[in-house]
């Protein structure tokens, strides 16, 4: 994995350089992903921490998955979500993945983090992270809009790409079409 983007301020100002971040695939919950490289293989520990705290704030108040009748435990819930994230990183177009990793790198580095969030290191404070997301949501700065939109599909996909989320939103799943066809044939 190439992680060689430069941490310079010009990066932000270059029109369109963060553009592809919003193109995270809709994903991606499939057994295949469970065999892919774990997230921490793509991300260094600092970047992983940023990703985790953003994911936590984003999905705050989303219920734990239910498996199949009981909610699953906090740790396995977190693990499920990260597996979803990992799915994104493993199927995403390489140039887009590099941009995402670069963004996380920028967010994990004090000065560039300040540029994007107004804080030098907010990641261990969930309240601050939620405030940052709320600010990005209404921001009129192009960079912040792009970053917000990028995470929007990424995190939603990590959660709702997982079939365990279906029951918490009342989705009954697809109909059993095989039976359906057979019934039709009998007519």
């Amino acid at each position, binding site marked *: 994995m190439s992680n060689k983007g430069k941490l310079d301020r010009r990066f932000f100002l270059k029109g*369109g350089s*963060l*553009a*592809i*971040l*919003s*193109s*995270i*695939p*809709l*994903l*991606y*919950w*499939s057994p295949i992903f469970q065999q892919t490289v774990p997230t921490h293989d793509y991300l260094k520990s600092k970047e992983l921490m940023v990703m985790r705290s953003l994911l936590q*704030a*984003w*999905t*705050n*108040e*989303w*219920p734990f998955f239910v498996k199949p009748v009981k909610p699953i435990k906090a740790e396995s819930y977190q693990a499920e979500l990260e597996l979803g994230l990992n*799915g994104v990183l493993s*199927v*995403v*177009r390489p*140039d*887009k993945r590099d941009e995402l990793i670069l963004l996380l790198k920028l967010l994990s580095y004090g000065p560039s983090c300040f540029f994007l969030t107004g804080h030098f290191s907010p990641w261990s404070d969930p309240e601050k992270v*939620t405030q940052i*997301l709320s600010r990005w*949501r*209404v921001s*009129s700065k*192009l960079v912040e*809009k*792009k970053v*917000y*939109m*990028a*995470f*929007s*599909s990424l*995190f*939603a*996909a990590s*959660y*709702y*790409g997982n*079939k365990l*989320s*279906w029951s*918490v*939103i*009342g*989705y009954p799943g*697809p*109909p059993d*079409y095989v039976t*359906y*066809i057979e019934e*039709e044939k009998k007519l």
Partner: protein
Amino acid sequence: MIVQSLKDISLTSDLNFDVVVVGSGPGGSLSGLKAAQQGKKVAILEMGRPLQTKDFVLDEATAYKNLYQEAAGRTSLDGAITILQGRALGGGSTINWTSSFRTPELTLKYWQKYFGLKDLSMEKLLPFFKEAESLIGVKDGEITPNRNNDLLAEGLSKIGAKHGLIKRNVRGCQNLGYCGLGCPVGAKQSALVTSLPMANKLGAEIFCDAVAERFIWKNSRVEALEVSVRGLQNQKYIFKAKTFICAAGAIGSPALLLRSKVADPYETLGKRTFIHPTTISGAIFKEKVEAYYGAPQTVYSDHFLPTKLEEEAAGFKLEVPPIHPLLLATSLPIFGKDHYELMKNLPYIQATIALQRDGFHPESQGGRVILKNGRPFLDYKFTPYMEKAFRQSLLVMGEAQLAAGAYEVMPIHRQGLRVKSLGALLKHVNELSMKALELKVVSAHVMGGCAMGARPQESVTDPSGRFHHLENLVIRDGSLFPTGIGTNPMLSIMGLVGQLSS
């Protein structure tokens, strides 16, 4: 149908054909079939995987990964528009929602007047529409609308807007509602179950996992096509043919020509790419809507589309999308509690979409396909003219949803709020910015980029679809359209390709 993966073909195989077709969407498959019917030795190349009806599963994540360009994550260059396109055997027809419309007459008249496309009159196209409709089983009335569609009709009736029922290309539809994931019972009459197996029966060879990299050309002729196996770019196959048909779809076809560095003296290639930029309005009802079940699109309204050739406003067509969890969740640019509060209403959510007619006004000239490291991007910018139509569409959709009895409506926007009354909707939508990356804009209708026209200064192909600068290269897909069309494009592509191939 016998489909080969290019992976399994030896590099030393004889790859000489009369006709090589790039892309197996409705355009490519039909032109491949026509060539095979004329007794030609045909190869159809498709970059998607060799998946057919039996392989389709009703799981969004799997389907998006297997059957869509960039796993359904393709966007415009600035990330503001989500672009859905098929990357599958059968192209977009394998994953589309089966709505079948002929090209609006107004669009054809516009093309005749402004692009010199004299042969594209309804009278001349009619036999080819009929032929295509009979091939893909287009008919109406087979399915009763699901509640998602019904509510659109009810709301439109209440606000006095005309609407109608959509004809669909299905045979024996089981009304499952999962057309967007590939029909698992083969009822949808996509290219996958019509033109492709028919062409195959007549001897056309079909290669999947085959990425056309570039045309190799000399003087005024294409000599060969360089093709690689998807994911293995270092292994190059050389396909030779007398005629090459480029049908890689909008974005795909101009990108292939750009990679081939073909002549482009007037810099028209990739320009005039249209997308019917689409806005979304969500509504929550007290009754169950279950918009995930039942044929996705059965009701439409053209009430807000222009009726005169030179009408000022862009206008839009109204339809509904199917609502499955992943598609809905990733379309909502909100987070935390707001996001979940909406998602947990899934069974009660109705959504309406407005497809803006682009390409008919100086402030609606489409986007441009460009390459970055050989990969295509669509640079498409909104203008104040388009933003005006976005705003109007969100108001009209919300009004219709409230009239149908919605408890709450919500424009799908970064700062969208749930509102309960028409007054609140008006105030809210009028305060929202309609700029890029503010409201959610999607497109499932990419067109143009290799525009046909009588004048080389403003087109890429001549009116017969032949590329201006290479005599044995023709385009046969939706990239030929010189504007958007104001309706769902599949049947228009098939009618046009039928006529051009005759």
